[in-house]
Structures are given as C-alpha cells and as structure tokens.
C-alpha cells in the first residue's frame, strides 16, 4: 500500500465549500455553474489527495484546490501536468501558480535550441530537420507550461504550417515564428499583430513576401492573401460580433476592403540578401519603398493617404484593424475554446471580452489579463453541470500530457517523435504542421448530422476525429507508452511504485491525466490491470501500461471537462 492510499484526508466536500472566495464576485450570478461546484472534484474510488507540504503555508484567504481540481485546472492551462505541477497548484492555489507562470522568463527559444543542436548548417537548408524535435521538446520539457499552452492556442489562431513555408531553412523560419507567439503570449495583442505581420514565416506562408504594388504595364495588382486572412481569420472575422461573441447579420468587410488593404502589404522583403545563414528569417521583414504602393489605401472606413511610407501604412492599418470592436470577442472566444470549452456561454465570452477591452488599468489587448480571466472565470473553475461542457482534447495535447505525466525525456536530445500527422498510424495532428491557414480544425466546426449539431453547438477538434484517426491514435499511443520513440521515453519509476495496487495505480494515472474518469471506469480499468499478475515477466510494467493506455483511450479522458 502506498503512502497516498494510507493517508486518507478530509473529503472534497470539506475542502471545496467556500470555493467562491477565490474568484470574482460575478461568480454568484452564474448560479447554475456554481451550485454544483462541489460535485465532482473527487469521485469515489479515486485516491485521496496527498497531504499538503508542510512548508510555506498559504495565506489564509486563499482556498486551496484539491488535487483533482488542480488536475482539471492544469488540463486547461498546460500541455500536461507532472506530479510536481499538481503538487505546486495544490499547495499555492490557482492565482499564485498563474503569477509564477506569468513571471517565469522565456526559456530556451526554438531558434536558439535549433542552433545549439547543430541544425544551422548548409546540410539542413532544404530540409525540415530539427523542426519536429524542437517543437515537441519545448512543449514537453519546458517549465513555462502556461506560455506553451497559450502559445499553441495562438498558433491555432494565427496559423502557420511548415509545409506552406517555401523558404530555405524553413524549420528556422517557423521556429522564429513560434518564438514570436511564445514571446508575446502574455503581451499585448496589438504588438503581437505587428510581429506576426512582419514575420518572414508569415510572409512566405501567406505570400506577401515579395508582394508588389500594382503594375499598370502588366495589369498585375497586389496579392490579396494576407489582407484577407488577417481580417477573416486573425482579427475580426466575417460578421459583426456583439461583445459576447454572438453574431450580427452584417458582414464586416467587402471585396473592396480586401483590395484596399492588400495595397498596404506591398514591398515586403527579407531584410538582408545574406543567404549564407538562416539569420534573416528571425528578423522582421523590411519594406522596399520602390515596390510599396504609393497611392492611397482605403479599407474598413479608413483611408491611408497617398505617399504614406510602408512602415507607417502598416502601423496605421494594424491600428485600424485592432480598433475594430470585433477583435475582443473574436480573440477572446477562440482562446476560451482552446483552453477551456468549445461552447462558452455568451456571458463568459462577454466577461473575457471586457477584460480584452480593458485590463483594469485602461489597456486594451492585454493577453496576460485575458488568460488570467479565462482560467479564473467561474465557468472554467466550477464543476461542469451541462452534458456538453468541455472540449475534445486535441491529439497533440494527449501525447504531451502523457509525456509530462510520466517524465518522458530524450537523453540524446534528439526528441525523435517526428511528424505525427498521419491519420492512418499517428495522431492526425502535429505541432506547427497545420495543412492550411484554416488550422487543423475551425472554431465553428459542427460535426454534421450529430446531436451536437442538432443542439446548435460546435466541437472544433472533432474536425480531425474520424474512423481511422480515432483508432490510429490508440494504436500509436499504445506503442509510444510502452516503447517510446528512439530514446524519447517515459520514466515510470514513480508510478511503478503503485503498480501493486490497481485502485491506487489507476487513481494516480487518472489524476496525472486530468482526473476525469468516473468510478465505474476506474473500476473497469483496475480489473483489467488485475488480470495481469505482477509476478509475470514485466508484470509491473504491463500493469502500468494497461492503466495508462486504457485511460488515454477512454472518452471520459478524451473530453476535457
């Protein structure tokens, strides 16, 4: 019997009674979410939370979450929880953990890791070598987990996929782009737009690198690609939105607005002709005045006067787009969808939009304030009561959650997980490998002809869930759990100490993977574990593998609630 099973502690009911004190008073308005907020934190059959550490007693006003509540929070806020993460949240509470994460300096950048790992050579100029390793490594091994999760949410919104970046050293171009997202994950959305719009990777991806002003001799006009997707996908969307994210009938722009804005994105070039190193791929694009449109540029009711420089035109254009009232609900709702739930209530979206509009000190677009508000909102924190709450975990997060829960690492630093895009024998999704600027899944995806659609709900991640991919995921994870990939492997030392008691084992696995299993499911998994005698060859490992794979395959786990 493990020490955990031995140390039964106060029940969840005892612990969660005054949970509202940790949150905003607005929580009281959301009665339906609140009434059940003490319901499902533990669930019978799960192991009780470990005793709180004796050091550093929390301030008395903070109500500490249970381990189960911490696990659920970390499913929303990280790429996966390690035991240490769980203990940390449970010992300091949500807000202090968020502060620590917000204040944690950016760790090794993607760019620097690629350089240090030796990928900046002429041998890699025409390959993608290093890209999958650098992406997986940071998601799994970097301690700035909130930044990783928010950065990946931003990559779902401001999409670049490496296959669409036709650059020499494209792995460096995309690495630099993901660094921009990670660097700005807690910054201001306007500043992020500036860096995204001058990123060489984006210039390649949405084809405005090399875009030229109209040429009367050939009849050629500026490329409209970035102008369109900047507005449609990255900032304002196609229809006017209310602050709560609900749609109005009016469309936000016309083809004439696209044509007008396209004139801004002309003259963009790499800032150096030195192609002997990847360096220019991490510096903002420059604007060649000779190819920048000199006439006036009219869009969204704004006119940039003739003769305005490229840099000034870009600033004015981004200011105008950023000022659009759609930006707050458009970005806020999608961030909620990426972190918490596919179908947030309009009131939830409205509360976050309000924070986007004003962080409390008059600043608009403060992503740190937005992320904090999303994760501390009562709709995120109180136990879900509606049978549609939550979201399908995207396959990338299932892999990283397993890896972080069981201390996976790559001693050789090769991180040879590779491209996991195959729907036939991998995950059907791979970081930084979206097939188009429309991402792996759309925020408005409605699985057709399903009760979800009938209910008027969306389920974005179901766009990549189909008959082959749901099976391929289990096949792939079964092999990865047991064998790893190259020298990328889990370290099961800790969990093996629990292998002897199936209930304890299953409880711990469930806790590490988000604490979502029902008592009935845990009982079923424990019975399967007990069908393997610990005394047979590799019995302990097989019991651990069984508990993990059955959890990872269970719909209760797959839907993050």
């Amino acid at each position: 019997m493990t020490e955990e099973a031995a140390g039964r502690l106060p029940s969840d009911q005892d612990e969660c009674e005054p949970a509202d004190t940790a949150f905003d008073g607005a929580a009281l308005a959301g009665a339906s979410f609140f009434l059940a907020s003490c319901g499902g934190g533990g669930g019978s059959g799960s192991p009780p939370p470990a005793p709180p550490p004796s050091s550093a007693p929390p301030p008395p006003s903070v109500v500490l979450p249970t381990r189960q509540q911490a696990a659920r929070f970390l499913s929303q806020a990280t790429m996966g929880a390690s035991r240490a993460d769980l203990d940390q949240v449970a010992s300091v509470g949500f807000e202090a953990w968020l502060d620590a994460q917000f204040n944690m300096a950016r760790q090794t950048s993607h760019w620097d890791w690629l350089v240090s790992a030796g990928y900046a050579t002429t041998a890699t100029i025409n390959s993608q070598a290093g890209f999958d390793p650098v992406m997986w490594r940071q998601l799994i091994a970097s301690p700035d987990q909130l930044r990783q999760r928010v950065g990946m949410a931003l990559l779902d919104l401001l999409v670049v996929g490496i296959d669409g970046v036709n650059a020499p050293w494209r792995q460096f171009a995309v690495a630099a782009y993901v660094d921009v997202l990670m660097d700005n994950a807690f910054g201001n959305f306007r500043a992020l737009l500036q860096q995204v719009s001058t990123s060489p990777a984006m210039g390649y991806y949405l084809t405005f690198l090399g875009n030229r002003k109209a040429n009367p001799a050939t009849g050629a006009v500026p490329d409209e690609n970035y102008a369109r997707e900047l507005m449609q996908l990255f900032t304002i969307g196609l229809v006017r939105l209310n602050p709560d994210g609900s749609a109005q009938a009016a469309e936000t722009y016309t083809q004439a607005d696209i044509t007008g804005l396209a004139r801004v994105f002309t003259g963009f070039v790499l800032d150096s002709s030195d192609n002997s190193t990847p360096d220019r791929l991490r510096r903002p694009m420059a604007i060649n005045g000779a190819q920048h449109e000199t006439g006036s540029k009219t869009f969204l009711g704004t006119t940039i006067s003739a003769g305005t420089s490229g840099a000034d035109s870009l600033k004015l254009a981004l200011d105008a787009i950023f000022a659009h009232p759609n930006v707050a609900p458009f970005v806020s709702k999608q961030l909620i969808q990426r972190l918490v739930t596919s179908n947030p209530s309009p009131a939830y979206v409205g509360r976050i939009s309000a924070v986007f509009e004003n962080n409390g000190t008059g600043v608009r677009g403060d992503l740190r304030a937005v992320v904090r508000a999303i994760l501390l909102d009562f709709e995120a924190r109180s136990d879900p009561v509606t049978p549609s709450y939550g979201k399908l975990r995207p396959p990338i997060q299932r892999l990283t959650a397993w890896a972080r829960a069981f201390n996976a690492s790559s001693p050789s630093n090769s991180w040879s997980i590779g491209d996991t895009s195959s729907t036939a024998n991998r995950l059907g999704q791979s970081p930084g490998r979206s097939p188009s600027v429309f991402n792996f899944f759309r925020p408005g995806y409605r699985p057709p002809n399903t009760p979800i659609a009938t209910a008027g709900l969306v389920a974005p991640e179901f766009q990549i869930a189909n008959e082959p991919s749901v099976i391929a995921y289990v096949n792939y994870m079964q092999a990865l759990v047991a064998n790893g990939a190259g020298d990328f492997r889990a370290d099961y030392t800790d969990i093996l100490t629990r292998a002897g008691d199936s209930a304890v084992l299953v409880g711990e696995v469930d806790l590490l993977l988000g604490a979502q299993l029902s008592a009935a499911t845990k009982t079923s998994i424990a019975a399967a574990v007990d069908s393997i005698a610990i005394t047979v060859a590799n019995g302990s490992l097989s019991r651990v593998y069984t508990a993990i794979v059955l959890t990872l395959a269970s719909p209760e786990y797959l839907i993050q609630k």
Partner: protein
Amino acid sequence: MTDQSRRAFLRDSAALGLVGSATPFVMNLAAIGEAAAATATDYKALVCIFLYGGNDYANTVTPYDQASYDQYARLRSTIAHSRDSLAATALTPQNPLPGGGQFALAPGLAPLVPLFDAGRLAIALNVGTLVQPTSKSNYISRSVPLPPKLFSHNDQQSFWQASNPEGASSGWGGRIGDLLQSANGAATLTCINASGNAVFMSGRSAVQYSVTSNGPVPLLNNSTTLFGSTLGMSTLRMLMTQQRDHMLEAEHSRVTKRSLDLQAQVSAALAAAPALTTAFPTGNTLADQLRIVARLISVSQELGARRQVFFVSMGGFDNHDSILTTHPTLLTRVGAAMRAFHDATVELGVMDRVTSFTASDFGRTLTSNANGSDHGWGSHHFVMGGAVRGRAFYGTPPVLADNGPDDVGQGRLLPALSVDQYGATLASWFGVPAGSLTTVLPNLANYNPSTWNLGFV
C-alpha cells in the same frame, strides 16, 4: 438488410411516398428485398473530387482560339500558359463552340484528353455557388440573395458542399445518401470519405464513413490481448465505444464504434478482392485516395452496396503565388490520378456506373497579382465516366475581361450555372427522383425545373 438500412428504408420510403398506405410494411419489405436481389448487379457510384484552395480556372481550361487566347494572355500576362504549350491539349468537341471558340486543357491534364475525345469527359463552364439565377446587375445592386461570405475559403467550400456556409449540418452528397442508403446492405457504407471529414458526406440521417488510402484501420492489428491480457483488450474496446451521457463523449464513442464495427467486414472484403492491375501513380495523394475508392467499388457487391457516394480531395490550390510552378504540378497529379481511376473503372467493368466530378472552393481572378491569382467565384469543372455525355462543353464560355459582363471584377466569374444544377444533374443520374431533388438541393427550387438538368450525364 441490416437494421440500420431497414430503418433507413422505411423512413425514406415514407418520405418518397413509396410505402403504400394499404400495403402492410412487411409484405412491402419482402417485395423490395426480392427486387434488390434481382438487381444485385445494379450499382452506381458518384465520386466527388474536391480541389481545396480554389482552383484557377483560367490555367486549367484555357482559352485557345487565337482571339480568346490573346485576351487571356493580355489579362494575365505574367501568369499565362504559352499558347505553344497548349497545342497538344487543345480540345475538339463533338459540336464546335459558337464563334470558333476553343479551349485547351492545362498541359498536365494531357491524360484526360483521350477521355474527352472518347466522350467520357465533359466540361461544365462557369459553375459556382448561387442562391438563385443572378445577373451582374442583380449582383451589383444586391437585389437577389447571394451566397453569404463570398470569396472566403471555408465558407464557400461549405456552400459548395452543403448549400450553407461553415457550420452547415448536412451536405448534398449525404442528402443523396439519405434517399438511397436503403438500397444498401449496410447503410453506413453509403457515404465513404477517403480524405477525412467533409460536410458534403453527411446527410440528415446518412453518416459519413472515413477510410484511409489503405482502407480501415484495425485496432492494435486486431490483437486479442492488450499487454498480454484478453480482459485488457476487451476493456479497451468497451471503454472506447461505451455509450455516454456527455454529448461530446458520446460522439467520440459513436465514431469509434462505427470504425470498429465496420473494420473487419471492410478489411476482409478488400483483402479477398483481386488486386487492381491498373497502375496508379505514386507520390500522389489524390491517386492514393482514388485507388482505395476503386478497390471499395470492386467489393461493393460483397459489402451489399448498390449506391455509394465517395469523396476524395487534394489541397494546395490557393495559388496566390508561384502559380506557374505550383499549379502545373498539382494539375499533373490530378490528371494522372483521374486517368488512373477511370482506367480502373474500365478494368472493373463499371465505367458506365461510376461518375466522377470535380469541385473546388471557388475559381480565381483572371487578372494576376504578378505571380499568382486571387480568390474568385465561378469556375470550370470536369465530369468523367462512361455514362457522361462527353466530348462537350456545357454552359457558355464566359467573356474574358476585367469587370466585363460575366465577371464581378478582376475576372472573378459570376457563375452562370449553379452548383445546385450541377448537383441535380448528377443526382438525377444517380437515381434521385425528380420530386426529391429540392430535398437534396434546396436552392434548386429557385430555378425553372426545365433548367435543373444540365444534361452532361
């Protein structure tokens, strides 16, 4: 019939008015069962080839007579095919186009030229999303409803496939399936997608079933044990497919159950089928998908399927840039893949029973942005198969212009033929009764019934 297809039959028979009120169902059902057995060789398949990204019409089906070519080359001087490069793919229709007009296929589509010449390939000109017949003045004055969110990829893909923008809950391939799935032994094998998920393939009752290019994926190679335990394996299957109260969990279980339920049957049928001798090109994902479609058609009888709708796709057509290098590569793959698929249907003896057609988000501008083209609207499309009335163009060649009578600026074609008419023509061949066509394609009701069938198949 399985339970599901029987239920589908009863519901759809009622919808179609086939179930006589005086006839007890059971007798009717028995009669239909016999009829089905008697016509077991009656088989038809529709294959939708979706070119994601918005295919550039002008460099796919290119004006070739000198006057038209000159106008084309003037309007997109930096991204035009050379006229010489088109000589080998110039098309000679059965009946010459009025005014001496000629078209040539992109050079990469050369494998399709013999099919055109043999009357197995037709070209529908300027097809696109519409709500109702729309003139340019209607467009300018917005005096008729237009498809919402024109020029937006995801929404126009959806409108093409489903008559509604993103968020649509069924598509016309699936709605055809609704009406005809009762003919199949397993209703779930009616709408088969070889490229993931697409709203096109979901009906109001018909569900899409997705396969990889190698067919279904077996769970853990159909192992009977998980880490040595049979209970582990049975628990795995139980958990993956268990009925859940939570709406999202339940949907995941449903997809998984469908996958596991059908895998053994479909894989076994595929394994038992003779290998196709037709060579499909390699390194061509569209060819990979069309190959599994051909293989599935080859076992349709074993699987009890008489009416099937398939969906395949290829991405990369959003050629804002590098159109002279990227687009020819893509079309070369399309040409090789479609030709191989056609040849496979000949090998299987089902050429007359399989009709394939292309679709895409939208066409593109005729004018250039220096090295690419931008989002447009109407486009030209291919219909291929032995039942096709080929070696012909359907519709009218659009006037080549920048803001001329047939375009809404920059050569973005205002569609003259609607997707609804295009779809209705295909659906009619497939066996959808005239009275049900507006169920499949609701906006068809805005058209004069005499124009519903474009006549290409």
